[in-house]
């Protein structure tokens, strides 16, 4: 069971307020998106949740325990895969376990069985630059997963990929979510991506950024590609666009 709660977060940079009373929740095995324009404070919010930054007020809690300003509880993945070029994929992926104090050998053993599940067979001894973009991203996801099997924060993880690879990754991600116990909070500015993947979507807009709307996507998972072209998909999309535009005016 994992339950992430973010309550009444306010954050200022010098005198400028970037986040205003942001509250959200993430339930077990849910995929929740934060959708909003670039520079709207989404990444700041992630830095706060991951503990890299302290909010000026507000609280972050995981399973009822306060983790505000503490690192090491939720895993964090950025748009860049950030695989270390000087480590083999195996050692890259096992790194969070080593950081937690596991021996390198043991860590490799723990990571081993997941390679197949993440579509990374036979890449153990390779270096990151020998992998394709999609594979690198999957390796980074595996590393994120091995760090915390509870909550993952993904900051635009697929936005650097080309469209075809991206949609393949979407399908793959929905598939893997069926198999593993992971709750995901997902930053994106791609509306289609948000609707396709999410159980719920928070719209984070305005200046300072605050949550203006929570949209629940009721479509059952796993979702096929036909969902992307369905009536209900368009309906969600219209709703989101209208909401975002309203804010812009």
């Amino acid at each position, binding site marked *: 069971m994992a339950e992430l709660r973010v309550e009444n977060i306010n954050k200022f940079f010098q005198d400028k307020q970037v986040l205003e009373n942001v509250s959200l929740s993430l339930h077990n095995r849910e995929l929740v998106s934060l959708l909003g324009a670039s520079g709207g404070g989404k990444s700041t919010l992630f830095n706060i949740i*991951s*503990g*890299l930054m302290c909010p000026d007020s507000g609280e972050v809690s995981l399973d009822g325990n306060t983790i505000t300003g503490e*690192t*090491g509880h939720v*895993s*964090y993945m*950025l748009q*860049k895969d*950030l695989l*270390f*070029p*000087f*480590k083999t994929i195996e050692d890259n992926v096992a*790194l*969070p376990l*080593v*950081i*937690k104090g596991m021996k390198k050998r043991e860590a490799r053993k723990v990571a081993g069985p997941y390679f197949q599940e993440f579509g990374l067979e036979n890449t153990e001894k390779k*270096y990151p*630059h*020998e992998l394709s973009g999609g594979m690198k991203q999957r390796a980074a996801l595996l590393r994120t997963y091995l*760090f915390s099997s509870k909550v993952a924060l993904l900051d635009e993880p697929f936005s650097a990929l080309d469209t075809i690879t991206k949609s393949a990754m979407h399908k793959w991600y929905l598939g893997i979510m069926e198999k593993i116990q992971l709750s995901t909070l997902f930053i994106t500015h791609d509306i289609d991506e948000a609707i396709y993947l999410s159980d719920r979507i928070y719209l984070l807009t305005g200046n300072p950024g605050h949550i203006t709307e929570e949209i629940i996507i009721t479509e059952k998972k796993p979702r096929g590609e036909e969902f992307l072209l369905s009536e209900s998909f368009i309906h969600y999309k219209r709703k989101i666009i209208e909401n975002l535009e309203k804010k812009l005016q």
Partner: protein
Amino acid sequence: MKKKLQSITNKIAAPMTIAGILVIWELISCFHVVPTYMLPSPVQVIHAFISDFSLLMFHAKVTLVEAFLGLLCGVLIGFVLAVMMDQFEFIYKAVYPVLVITQTVPTVAIAPLLVLWLGYGIAPKVVLIVIVTFFPVAIGLLEGFRSADRDAVHLLQSMGATRIQIFKHIKIKSSLSQFFASLRIAVSYSVVGAVIAEWLGGFSGLGVYMTRVKKSYAFDKMFAVIFLISAISLVLMYSVDVLRKCCTPWENRRAIRK
């Protein structure tokens, strides 16, 4: 085929130039453009090298030992300084300008001082080499540590990594290519530093040999020792390259792929 030819041309370009220079040089001495006692021909130099071979090797050994000890201490000191400067901002601010100043003092100017303080033994040589080698190593490493990807550092922080873990997992590895570039420079400095220190006082070493053959106007032997010194530097620099390739296997595979 064309590409192969090109790669052959690339490979032999430098040896060809050297061979060309040697031929011109041989011709100059053959036709007595410059008197042979002032500019011996390459063949004479080779003869001198062979006849003095055991003596040269004896002195070379001394110089190499000095260079190695000095380099070792220099690298260690450079490493410690770089780590301290990277980890503590105030040390960086306090020490860095002093480091730069130490490098503006000409080597030839401090060497006699060192001899007066430390005598004619190995100590002044090693100290001088330390002075010339620690700087490039410290600066190269510091730059290397700072070149570590900030986002990667943040990622490790978000995993709850300690400073030591961040240092071990990112900074050391990120600094390796810079480190080896500086080590290459430091290695050639170490040989030159040893020779200069020996020049200014000592009982053995290639620098001492040089001053002795200079006093007897043995130009051929002077050239022989000059070539020996540059050959030693080249071999050492090459060894650094080999070491670099062993320590950074990920770079090699990238090179092959290109």
